[in-house]
C-alpha cells in the first residue's frame, strides 16, 4: 500500500513537472517567435517525400486516391515544423 502511494505521488509529480516544462517551453518559443517573426520562413517538409515505405504501400492494391480527386497542392503552413524531429525525418519508431 505504501509502495503504491509512493508510485502514485511520483507519477502525479512527474506529470506536473512535464506540464510545467511544456508551458515554459511554449512561452520561450512564443518569445523567440516574436523576435524572429518577419525575417524567417517556416520550412514545410512534404510528408509524401518522407517515407519510401509509405510510397510502396500506396502502390499496393489496397491504396487508392480520394474519390473527390483531391489534388495535392503545396502550401505554406503555420505549423512550426522546422523543430520537429518527426517531420525532419530523424524520428525512428515504433519506439
Amino acid at each position, binding site marked *: 500500500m505504501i509502495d503504491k502511494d509512493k508510485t502514485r505521488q511520483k507519477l502525479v509529480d*512527474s506529470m506536473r513537472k512535464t506540464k510545467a516544462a511544456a508551458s515554459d517551453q511554449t512561452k520561450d518559443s512564443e518569445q523567440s517567435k516574436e523576435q524572429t517573426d518577419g525575417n524567417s520562413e517556416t520550412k514545410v517538409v512534404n510528408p509524401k517525400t518522407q517515407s519510401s*515505405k*509509405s510510397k510502396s*504501400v500506396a502502390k499496393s492494391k489496397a491504396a487508392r486516391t480520394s474519390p473527390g480527386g483531391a489534388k495535392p497542392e503545396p502550401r505554406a503552413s503555420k505549423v512550426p515544423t522546422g523543430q520537429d524531429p518527426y517531420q525532419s525525418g530523424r524520428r525512428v519508431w*515504433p519506439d
Partner: protein
Amino acid sequence: MPIIALVGNKGGAGKTTLAINCATALARRARTTLVDADPQGSSLQWRAFTEETSGLPVFQSAAELESQVLGFFPQYDYVVIDCPPSVHALQTHEALRVSDIALIPVQPSPMDLWATVHIERAVAQARDSNPRLKAVLIINQLEPRTTLSRLVREALAEIDLPLAATPVRRRAVYRSSALEGKSVFDMGRRGADAAAELDQLIKEVIPL
C-alpha cells in the same frame, strides 16, 4: 458527418489499432472510410493483408488532408483519420483542424503519459480555427492488475482533457486480428470481449 481523428504524441499508443477497429465498427452501421495520414502506412498495410471485400475503404492521405476529408462527404457518413505519432506533425495539425472528435489513446506507462501532456496545447491551438473539436483521452492496453494501470486515471487527471470512462484492455486478439487484415469484430468468440468494450467506447465517445 462526424470526422474522427486518432491522434497522439507517441508511437505504439494504439492509434492505428483503434482507428481500424472503430472504423470497422462504424462501417457496420453507416458509410465509413478510413484515411491513413501516417507516412508509416500501417492502416493501408492492414487493409492490404486481406482479400475480403470489406465495407471499409482505406485511403492514403493527400497532401491537402483537409480538402480530401471534406471531399468524402456526402458520399460517406463517417471519416476516421489515423494520424502519425507526433502532435508536431503536419498531418496531426491538419487532422485536428478538420475533425469533430479527436480520440487520444494512451498507454498506462510513464513515457506515454508524459508525451501526452503536449496534446493539451495542440488541441487548444486547433480550437482557435476549429472550435467544434472535442478531444477525449482513452486508456489503451489496460492491464487491471498492474499498479500503473490502477494509477493511470489519476495521472491523466493532470491533463485538461476529458477521459473516456471505458478503457481498452490489453488483449492478444487486437494483434492477431490485425495480422489477418481483420478487426476484432470479425474474430467470432475470440474477439467478443474486445468487440464489446469497443462498442461501449464508441457509444460513449462518438455520436451515432
